[in-house]
């Protein structure tokens, strides 16, 4: 519905949207874990996310840890000020790699590997 997965620049870009809460977190979780099994680095585009709470954050933390176990990276892209506030409250704003936009994410992430 409000999610999209696509390949871009050799990465798996997951675009999330809407409100990621207790109701929607399970579907976001399985979408992300599914992406991770493909073995490519994951970028989660949050630009269209209007709300996220502890349930949504839990799905992202689980995905981050699964990515790291699988030797790939998971970055967050285009976080709104309110969503960033939620990551800050969770003391996770330094744990996740956060890119201002998709361009920056593509460039930086590629440079990291080069």
């Amino acid at each position: 519905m409000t999610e999209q997965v696509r390949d871009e620049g050799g990465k798996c870009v997951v675009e999330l949207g809407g409100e990621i809460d207790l109701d929607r977190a399970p579907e976001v979780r399985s979408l992300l874990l599914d992406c991770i099994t493909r073995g490519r680095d994951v970028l989660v585009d949050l630009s269209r996310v209007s709300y996220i709470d502890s349930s949504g954050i839990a799905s992202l933390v689980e995905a981050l840890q699964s990515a790291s176990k699988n030797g790939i990276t998971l970055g967050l892209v285009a976080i709104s000020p309110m969503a960033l506030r939620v990551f800050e409250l969770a003391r996770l704003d330094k744990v996740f790699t956060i890119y201002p936009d998709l361009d920056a994410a593509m460039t930086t992430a590629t440079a990291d590997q080069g």
Partner: protein
Amino acid sequence: MSGPITDEERLLELRFPARPDRMALVRKSIRGAALDYGFDDFAIQEIVLAISEACQNVMRHSYTERETGDIVVSLSRTAERLIIRVTDFAPTVDPTKIRSRDLSDIRPGGLGVHFITELMETVEYLPGPGGVGNILLMTRKTEVSP
């Protein structure tokens, strides 16, 4: 709490089944109400987040899949504070069991209580009226005069 609440004026109560798929509706409704009360966008988002976390915890910890019920979110105010009560009708919970964890241990979950205490000025878990259910009483200073 810093003291007893006096001069409390009731604003609005929302009652709904304790189901995750009701929360989007409840959030929109609370946003609307908080907007009318004069909070700015950022404060409204924070208030809505705290209420959502409280409701989620009721769904996940107070009620069980077999024994569920309603949640009542009530908003009221004094001259200085917005007062929020999240009430359930589940068996009474031991408030000492409701605790935040060490956040430096990075793992999924365990953030709700921490969010609530960060976003609100006072937070208190009380038994419901007549010993039935639970009330989470939270207050937050109003930035603007109503």
